[in-house]
């Protein structure tokens, strides 16, 4: 159980660092709001056939998922920079699990994913978004979002361990996150897309996540999408946690 207490202490370290540099939260606070404004008011009229409110109801759950995926990028960048600075040498020389520094950093990211959810729901409400289901489904949507963020960010952790600079982490991660989030049901209904793109959207892990959040916030089928999403989350952990830990151990 000491892995948990050590990870907890290291998560606290990350949180202190976040509190000291609040500007590091821009990508999970102001940036999602800018995207929301941009897509609602600039493209919303054209995409939503004139009905901006209906488009916002459609868009916000999807943008939540996109912001979560993008929100994990900073974690890999920070870990990459930390490792260069020698702080991790000290952790390595301590009698703690090798996983603890990475697990601790991931746990601290809960704060970032919660920020994404709260900021987007609050600002969305100001723009006219309305939860059409109820309080508990909305809480479930936030919980699922944070949970997905915690699983998805292990990709970023792994990339952070294998590339040389933190700038490269961002480059690699955006090459992955942009196709995944735009090539999905985030911005437009899947049936408006050409067949080959529909095929990609159907196998994209972001798609069931967005469908689940949509169901939980504005109504619609949930169970089947939720099952697929949970399978994806487990799959992400099973593949990328061991990859990240092995890459961390090798990077001495």
């Amino acid at each position, binding site marked *: 159980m000491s892995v948990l207490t050590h990870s907890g*202490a290291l998560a*606290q*370290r990350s949180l202190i660092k976040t509190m000291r540099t609040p500007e590091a939260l821009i990508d999970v606070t102001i940036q999602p709001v800018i995207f929301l404004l941009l897509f609602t008011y600039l493209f919303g009229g054209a995409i939503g056939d004139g009905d901006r409110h209906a488009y916002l109801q459609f868009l916000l759950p999807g943008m939540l998922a996109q912001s979560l995926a993008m929100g994990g990028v900073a974690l890999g960048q920070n870990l990459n920079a930390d490792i260069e*600075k*020698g702080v991790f*040498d*000290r*952790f390595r020389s*301590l009698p703690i699990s090798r996983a603890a520094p990475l697990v601790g950093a991931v746990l601290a990211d809960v704060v970032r994913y919660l920020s994404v959810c709260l900021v987007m729901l609050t600002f969305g409400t100001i723009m006219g978004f309305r939860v059409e289901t109820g309080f508990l489904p909305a809480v479930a949507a936030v919980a699922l979002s944070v949970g997905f963020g915690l699983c998805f960010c292990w990709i970023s952790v792994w990339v952070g361990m294998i590339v040389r600079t933190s700038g490269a982490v961002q480059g690699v991660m955006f090459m992955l996150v942009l196709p995944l989030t735009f090539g999905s049901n985030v911005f437009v209904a899947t049936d408006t897309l050409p067949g080959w793109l529909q095929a990609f959207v159907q196998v994209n892990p972001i798609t069931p996540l967005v469908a689940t959040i949509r169901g939980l916030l504005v109504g619609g089928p949930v169970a089947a999408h939720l099952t697929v999403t949970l399978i994806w989350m487990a799959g992400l952990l099973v593949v990328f946690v061991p990859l990240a830990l092995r890459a961390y151990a090798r990077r*001495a």
Partner: protein
Amino acid sequence: MEDLVVRAEGLRKRFGETQALDSVDLAMRRGTVLGVLGPNGAGKTTAVRVLATLLRPDEGTAFVAGVDVLKHPDQVRRKIGLTGQYASVDEDLTGTQNLVLIGRLLDMPGRDAKRRAVELLEWFGLQEAAGRPAKTYSGGMRRRLDLAASLVGHPEVIFLDEPTTGLDPAKREDMWGVVRSQVTRGASVLLTTQYLEEADALADEIVVVDHGRVIAHDTPDGLKRRVGGQTLKVRPADPERLPDVLRVLDAVAAPGTTAAKDEAAGSRPGTASVPVTSDAALADAVAQMRAEGVEVTELALHLPSLDEVFHTLTGRTRTEAPV
């Protein structure tokens, strides 16, 4: 058998084209200071990283505090403290937060971790900066915090990788005091340095490394004897008294040597130097000059530089490639 707290045999480590460690043997007796002396790139840091379980060697064995570093790194980590060459404190955390974090990671209860942090901060003269983020610290303060962090768990063996590089002389002496106090407490210290002066001041034994090989392992006195010992340099207030100074210095000269005026290019004239073998020579010379009424404005005992050490031990200058 001797009580060896660090014992390494045949350590080899290669990074691409560079043979960082080329069959290195190390031995450190419990309760002593071992100085690992060598220039940049000699393999000092690699050796420390292997012993501190950060790096696996390609070949060789190492035991720290009786535990096999390769087989049981976790047990080794319970017994060591490491201060790396680059201050490994967290810049965003305050001094207290840095030390409390280490304490928590060493499974101290929260209150004990806090108490240990306060104790160490006070001991290192950082209590006033305790609540400030480490990024506001000066280089010397950061080094002290870094060293404090490696002492949180009362380690049995302490590894210090160039603990004073970049510090001014006064701060360096402070650091030396800390090292000595740790030995008094019963710890054993392995420190790397580029300065013979530092190794001489602290170490019970010195290992000289070059290109990943140990080229000498000796006591400081033994090493100084081998590399020609020290040089005593004197400047009389009255340049006319230089002949008297030469006569005094001849009397304390190392066997087979004589005193000479310093006429090397670049040095200010009016001084005389002599190789000496013991620190007592300095006291003898001072007493003799006072007896003869020679007033002195400059008096210094110089240790050979790392370059001179290397030149003597290897017969070549450091910049030349090994033959």
